[in-house]
């Protein structure tokens, strides 16, 4: 009986911790940032530059722009489908197309978006694998 109660408590306790622990602690941001930097350095760095500052009037910056810090579905869509429209970003227009990167896995997209949203002075929320999965499923 005692044993039963103790194990019940243990199970409940474990369940309680899992249910109420903030997601922040489950998500290893540091590891995601490190993986994201690898993707960035391979694919993004040439156009957007090592410091995310882009190229004036050619490739948009990623520093504190409304796109970079904005809704995640748009960011996932830009990565998966590419982007080639005349839009204003923080008061300027940019001429070069953003090529689609459909070869990226959901994990890579989550990592690189987390890296971009939390680097170069940006302090936006990270992007999880589950979020990318859900957004990408709707894109197809």
């Amino acid at each position, binding site marked *: 009986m005692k044993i039963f109660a103790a194990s019940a408590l243990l199970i409940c306790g474990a369940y309680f911790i899992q249910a109420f622990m903030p997601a922040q602690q489950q998500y290893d941001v540091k590891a995601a940032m490190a993986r994201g930097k690898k993707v960035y350095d391979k694919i993004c*760095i040439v156009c957007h*530059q*090592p*410091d995310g*500052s882009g190229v004036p009037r*050619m*490739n948009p910056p990623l520093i504190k722009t409304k796109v970079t810090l904005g809704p995640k579905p748009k960011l996932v869509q830009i990565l998966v489908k590419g982007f080639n429209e005349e839009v204003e970003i923080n008061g300027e227009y940019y001429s070069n197309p953003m090529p*689609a990167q459909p*070869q990226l896995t959901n994990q890579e997209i989550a990592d690189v978006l987390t890296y971009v949203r939390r680097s170069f002075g940006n302090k936006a929320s990270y992007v999880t694998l589950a979020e990318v999965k859900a957004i990408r499923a709707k894109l197809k």
Partner: protein
Amino acid sequence: MIKLFSSFILIIAAAFSACAGDPVHSAPGDIKLPAGFKAIVVADKLGNARHIVVNSNGDVYVKLERLKDGKGIIRLRDTNGDGVADEKFGFGNFGGTGIAIKNGYLYASSDDQVYRYKFNDKNEIENPDKPEIIITGLVNKRQHSSKSIALDNNGFIYVNIGAPSNACQETDRTAGSKGQMPCPILETAGGIWQFRADKLNQSYAEGVRYATGLRNVVGLDWNTSVNELFVMQHGRDQLSQLYPDNYSNEQNAEVPAEEFFIVKKGMDFGWPYCYYDPIQKKKLLAPEYGGDGKTEGLCGTKEKPLYAFPAHWAPNALLFYTGNQFAAKYKNGAFIAFHGSWNRAPLEQAGFNVVFLPMKEGKPSGDYEIFADDFVGGKENLSPSKSKHRPCGLAMGTDGSMYISDDQGGTVWKIIYTGEK
């Protein structure tokens, strides 16, 4: 003793650099120029100052890429002869790059049209709000859309129509996407078109594709000493990023060259099928068309550069110096303003400068030297947006001074020679 020794070293170093003729600062914070030259800031904070031209009365006209206070052309006037503009007058409701003066008209371009304004007998623009449209309906798909212009002495105007593409892939700048064969872009872009300088509302039907296979030209000039057009091409980007199996990042930083060409009617310079490797000194087949960094393929018959400049420096202006103020070696030689690279990343950026290439009878007669430098304004050069200035336009004044424009800080400098000849 150590102090004495180090000052001695400093003196030796200073003397050596002066002897070597390297650019020096004429004042702290200035751009660097060769000894005897001086830079005067004509104006600054003008906006994206692209190409510039100087009228016979000394007025400087600056074409802005983006409208500033609703104006796309700025006239700078120096009323007291100290080189600094005392009066600024803005007009023109279109952004763009090209500007030129010929036979009593100021020509200026947007990204799809070319306009002209008539000067009156007092050298003032007769009707700044109502230019004539000379050329209209040119391809403008944002990428490589600036329309640079040059005029000859036979009534023709030459317009660069840049290709809205990197290498004519089915999907632009995308790894694994093949090059289109033949490249359909070449029908309306990727070359130099020739139009009449005095006929209104011309488009492709009235123009002639003068030369093809030029990816994008921003700097071009009519060379009056040999009566031919010369251009500087912006070479292709992203060899290592799109084809990492064939090119390393280090190779991509040096290949392909920025090519200097003489352009005669009917010539084909090879884009998008070919690029110039300055190390192998060959036109090679582009990887989008099956190239591997060694194969020449169909590129043997394409025009070769007169001179190969370092990769990705982005030549934005070309000027043949015909004045008498500078020393004799500069006469009929080429000044080239390099905007500075972005495609060398992840390696350090380079080429934010103005170089001089000596020429004789329309051919390079030596190697280039850096004429004006230190536009970046610091030692580190990690990204073009951090550069203080980016050289973009060149022009010569009637007194033989040279003007340099900058589309980042919006500065225009007047370069004068004050030393011995």
